[in-house]
Structures are given as C-alpha cells and as structure tokens.
C-alpha cells in the first residue's frame, strides 16, 4: 500500500535542484567549447528543454504559450530561414547539404525556452549560472592563450607582423600576426585573431560586477571575477595589434558606459536619451551605408551619393575605404543585385554567375552583415526583431527585477559586449588553413545569449515593471500621485477575476 502511495506521489517537480545542476553543467559545456559542434549544441539543447518542461510542467501550464510564443516564434522562423538559405549549397558551410540544418532551429528554440522556464525555478540563481559561464569561457581562453604563447611568443602580433607560415605547400593566407590557436573539438587549430579575441573581450565584462561586490563580504566571487577580467585583458594585450587595439577601445567604452549608467543609477531619462542617439545614428548610418554600397547595376543605385562619398576624403574613409566597411559594402551591394531579392526572397548566399556555383565570400567580420548571406534578407529581419525585442526586455530586467545588481549588470555586459564585438569583428570563416563557414547562430556564445534572453524575458514579465510606463512618467511629472499597475499585480487581478 505504501509502495502504491509512493508511486502516486511521484512528481518530476521534485527534481528541481537536479535540473538546476544539469542546466549549470550544460552552460559550462557550451561556454568552455570543449566540444565545439553545432550537432552537440542542438541535441543537448533539445534534450535539455524536454527535461526542463518535464520538471517545470506546472510553470509551463501556468504561463501558457502567449508570452514565450512571442519570443520563440521569431527565433524558430529565423532558424528555418537560415536552414533553407542557399548557403547550404556551399560545400564549405558547416551543415552543407545536411538535413540536420532543419533540426538546428529547434535547438535554438529549445535553449531559449530552457532559459525562460529555468528562471521560474527558485533554486536557480543567475549568479551561479554567470559564474559557470565565465569560468567556462575563462578556461577556454586560458588554454588558447597558453597554446598560442607556446607556439608563438608574447606580442608576436607586432613582432612578426609580416611573416608567414608555410602550410600544405603554400604560404599561410594571413601572416602569423593575424592568427592564434583555438581549442576546437579536442585539438588546437589556427584561427583568425579576431575570432580568438572574441572570448577574452567577453571576459573583460567580468570587471563590471566588481563595482557592486564587497571584497570583504564576497571574497571568492570578487577574486573570481577579478581573475576572469585580468585573464581577458592579459590575453588581449599579449596578442595586441592595431585591429584588436581598436576593438579593445570600442569594448572598453561600452563597458565604461554600462558601468557609469549602472553605478550612478542613470536610469530612464539618460538611458533613453543615449539609446535614442545611438539608435538614430545606427539607423542613419545603415541607410547611408546601404544606399552608398549600391555600386553594381541595381534598382537602388544612387550615383550622386556614391560620387559625394568618394569625393570627400572623410566620407570616403568612412563609407568606402576601410577594412570594416568594404566587407559590409560587398554584401549590401550584392543583396539587391546578385541575389535578385524578388526572385530569391529567402536566398542567403550569393550566386557567382561566372563559376555557376554558390559561394560565400569572405566573412564581412560582422554577424549582422553576414546574416544577409547566411539567413537572407527576411532572416536578418527576424534576427533584428528578436534582438530588439529581447534587448528591450533585458533593460526591463535590469530596471525592475529583484536579482542582485552585480548579476544584472553582468548579464547586460555579457549580452551587449558579445553582440557589439560580433557586430564589428565576428569571423564566420575562423579557420586559417581551411575554409569552413560557421555562422554566428552556430556559435556557443549565441546559444548562451539566447539562454540569457529567455531568462531576462521571464524575469521582466514577472517583475514589478510598470505596464504603462509612459503614462506613469507623465503622471509623475504633473505631480499627481503615482499609481502604477505592475505585471505581478495585473496577474493577481486576472486571477481574482477568474475566481469570481
């Protein structure tokens, strides 16, 4: 009889702590990139979400599909648009002609959903998850640095700027100063320096929580984050060249801005003004770049704009002749000519008509511009939609969630720095000696970003965030007492109405 009772009382929700442990292990596996494979990431993500849903079933039932569906659906569409992109015809693409590319979107959605639902688990602490993620990235960076230093020497990026290795009968395509060693599937491969530097740049954000942690009270956490930051900085300095110096400057400014905004609690007003200025400049810059790039025969070609930018030295430097922009221009130019957007509305890759093959040109060193190749115009649209929606919720999470400030700052830092660095320097063809195309959505950091998006979305939707922010601010300005309905209160009201 007792046995029967035990059986009937069996409930998977009792395994919440085990689930948290599993999630942390998976995050460590992904962050450390020990087995850097999209197959592994996808399968593990799908298994993880099944486990999360099984254990957190009550939460899944309570939440329904409306909130998470709004988050997951665009990711799924983005994944499928990437899967059906013509890039699959390129033999160098990591999933060339493989049916598995149709499974990857479910992996992306699964990992995002796992982040969303695990946030409702009381035993899951984002501080622990961040420590695990940063430890994984630090482990990877440390190994990469040691092997790179054993093979090369400190500051080889400056001392051997014009020297080449011979490989397979030919000089290396780039000088040794533009390559480093990276752990890939249990062996160290030569990768581009910009790909190698991605991980130490992320580690620099570990300096952010130090402003909010007291050394005397949280000694271990303080030392851990300090070590991660120092490791990141040391790695970048030992492998510095003029491009990594530029990237370091950009990332340092971003980290400083995050620190200023969070440390001095510059919330709504200043944040909004800054965001609007950055957003406005970004949109204006993109439109100008897009129009200026139309060099080939195209419907959108504006010769006078091209003339204008080439005649002025500063504009020419900005829009035509610098290493970053030339890659973007090639893609934006091709988007409205080679791809024939109306004929191939979902095409991601360019057709090289001379060779009659589908080819992926050199990476533009930007995940955003690469996505025109990788996922097509509409795929890029969905990606941008996901990013804007999620970043908005990440800020709501920062402002209204009850998580510790040091964790919230680190989440923001991780997401923004990863995305900004990937925007200016992500190499989708990272391997020096063979041309394997591994787009950003197959990268371990992208998986971690969407996990954190899921987490922040749940926390944002279940925080005391005012629903009508604009109205509340207006009322506050007019001097009337501030009565704001929060998401939590709204849920309570709904529950009461239902019970009546």
């Amino acid at each position, binding site marked *: 009889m007792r046995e029967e009772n035990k059986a009937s009382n069996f409930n998977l929700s009792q395994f919440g702590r085990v689930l948290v442990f599993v999630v942390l292990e998976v995050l460590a596996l992904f962050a450390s990139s020990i087995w850097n494979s999209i197959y592994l990431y996808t399968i593990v993500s799908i298994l993880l979400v099944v486990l999360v849903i099984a254990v957190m079933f009550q939460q899944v039932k309570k939440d329904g599909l409306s909130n998470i569906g709004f988050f997951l659906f665009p990711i799924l569409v983005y994944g499928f648009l990437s899967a059906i992109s013509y890039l699959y015809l390129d033999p160098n693409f990591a999933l060339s002609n493989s049916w598995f590319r149709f499974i990857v979107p479910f992996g992306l959605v699964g990992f995002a959903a796992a982040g969303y639902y695990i946030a409702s688990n009381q035993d899951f602490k984002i501080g622990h998850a961040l420590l695990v993620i940063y430890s994984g990235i630090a482990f990877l960076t440390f190994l990469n640095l040691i092997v790179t*230093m*054993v093979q*090369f020497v400190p500051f080889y990026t400056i001392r051997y700027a014009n*020297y*080449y*290795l011979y*490989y397979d009968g030919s000089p290396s395509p780039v000088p040794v100063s533009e390559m480093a060693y990276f752990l890939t599937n249990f062996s160290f491969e030569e990768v581009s320096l910009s790909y190698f530097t991605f991980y130490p740049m992320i580690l620099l954000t570990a300096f952010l929580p130090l402003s909010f942690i007291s050394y005397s009270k949280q000694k271990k956490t303080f*030392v851990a984050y300090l*070590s991660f930051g120092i490791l990141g900085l040391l790695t970048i300095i030992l492998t510095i060249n003029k491009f990594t110096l530029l990237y370091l400057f950009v990332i340092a400014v971003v980290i400083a801005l995050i620190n200023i905004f969070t440390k001095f609690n510059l919330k709504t007003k200043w944040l909004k003004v800054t965001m609007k200025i950055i957003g406005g400049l970004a949109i204006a810059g993109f439109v100008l770049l897009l129009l200026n790039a139309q060099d080939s025969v195209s419907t959108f070609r504006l010769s006078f704009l091209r003339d204008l930018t080439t005649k002025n030295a500063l504009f020419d430097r900005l829009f035509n002749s610098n290493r970053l922009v030339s890659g973007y221009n090639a893609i934006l130019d091709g988007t409205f000519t080679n791809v024939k957007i109306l004929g191939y509305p979902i095409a991601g890759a360019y057709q090289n008509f001379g060779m009659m093959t589908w080819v992926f040109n050199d990476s533009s060193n930007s995940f955003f511009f690469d996505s025109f190749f990788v996922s097509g115009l509409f795929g890029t649209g969905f990606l941008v939609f996901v990013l804007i929606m999620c970043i908005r919720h990440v800020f709501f999470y920062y402002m209204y969630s009850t998580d510790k400030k040091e964790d919230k700052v680190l989440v923001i830092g991780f997401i923004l720095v990863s995305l900004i660095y990937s925007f200016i320097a992500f190499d989708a063809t990272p391997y020096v000696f063979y041309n394997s195309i591994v787009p950003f959505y197959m990268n371990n950091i992208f998986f971690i970003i969407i996990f954190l998006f899921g987490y922040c979305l749940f926390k944002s939707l279940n925080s005391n965030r005012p629903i009508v922010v604009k109205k509340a601010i207006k009322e506050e300005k007019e001097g009337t007492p501030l009565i704001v309905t929060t998401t939590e209160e709204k849920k309570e009201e709904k529950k009461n109405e239902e019970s009546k």
Partner: protein
Amino acid sequence: MKKVNKKILLLFPIFILTGCGYGLKEVYPGNVYNSVDYNLNFYKEWNKDLNYHEVEMESESHVLDKDADKVFLSPNDAYFPDHNDYDYADDLDFNDDTRSYGQTFALSKSESSFKYGYLSKLFDGQMFCHGRYELARVQIGESGFAAKTSKELKEYSYFALNFKASLDYRRDGVSTGIPAHNSSIILKINFYCKVNSSTYKRVEFTYPIEHVNTNYSEATNIYTFFGFDLEKYDISRCAGYSIEYELVHDEYIESHGAEYTPSLTHCLLLYEMFLPGSTWH
C-alpha cells in the same frame, strides 16, 4: 589576500615557460624560393643535428641494387608496387573515385605535422606542376638539404620521390631555352634514426641514375619517379631525412658549358616524397 596573491603569482611561471615560439622557428616574409632569378631558389637548409659532414654520428651505407631492392624509375616499372591500383598522372583531382596516387599517399594525409613548413611542398600530394604551379617544387643543388620530422617513423614499406632536373632555366630572370638533354646523377637519400633523444644513426642509400631528363625549363612534364623497397632495412625511429646528389655527367654542360659565364648550375626539382603506408608516433 596574501594567499590569493601567492596563488595568482604561481600562474606567472606558466607564462614565462611559454613564449618558446615553436611555431615561429620557420616563418618567412611571404612566398620564398620563387624568385625570377634561378640562383636564388635553391633550398640548402641543413638541420645542425643531421649535418653528418660536421657532426659525427653512427652510420651505415647501402648501394641499392635494381632487382634486390626493387628500384623503380617510372610509374610503369614492374617494381613500382602500386602501379596497377592508382592513377599516377591525376595528382590534382581530389575526387575520391579516381584513387589518385599522389593524393592517396601524401605524407600529410597520414601525419598532419607534415603539413607545416616550407618542405610541406614535398608532402601535399601534388606530384607535378608543368610550370604552372611554381609553388609546388623544392629546388636543390648537389649539396641538398636535411630536415627533421616532428614524429618518429614506426612502420614503412617503400620510398618514392618524384622529381625532374634542369639547368639555369631562367638566367638573370630570362628564360635561357637550354635544350632538353640527359644528365646522370648518383642520388643519395639519408634517413636519420634516433638512438637517444639527441643522437642519430644515419642510414644512407645511394643509387646511380643514368638518364635523368634535364629539361630546358621547369615547365615540362618529363619526370623521374624513383623509389625502392625499404622492408628489409631498419629505419624505425627515423626522425629526419636528407636528399642530395652528385652530378656525374651532363651532356649540355660538357658540350656548351664553356660558353657560359658564370657557369651553368644543375638542379633537381623535387615535387613529392612518399613513404606509403607509413605510421608515425
């Protein structure tokens, strides 16, 4: 804090130990040994430890016998073990169906460390280049070269080398048009087998080749495919090799050599070296 500082300080020796620069021991300022001046293209690097002219080492010498050592000088020779199974001419076709000899037995396929360094030209599977792919050849004079391998040879069956010869095919950057003729050489292949971590035993093989096609330029397709059986010799733990030759006789130098100042220089253009079925550890 002091304890923490000590732990952090422990990391610094690791960084001091790094910076060995193993990968930088052989770096070049771009494409090398590919000048328009013929005389600048000779590869003459002798690894110090393997230079038996200067370093004393235990050695044994073997003069190869055509029949006893199954020496072959062309892919159609009956002693060439794989001449019926592989396509000898189709070295650039990476299609798996063709069973290209070069691509199948390239040393870089069996041991990835052969992919690194200037001499990787000899291990990339490209057996020919009729002047179009100058990158794929190592030009040597009689003094030859010697190089170490990253790993030690464990199993092996036979040795093969694809090469052709030439005289100053470009003199001062201008094609000389020296007519195709014959030369005869004594080819010397040395294997350096490890006795202990720093000393080697040299195993020398020599073979006189009476007719080596000596071309008017590098842009011809007449090659010598030389090889011999290694199974009865002990070259296990081989961790280095050298290739050199002695020019015994050159028809053109003998008949017209006196007309040239400075004198004509003979060379071998090496394209691919094989140790089919070898394993390395």
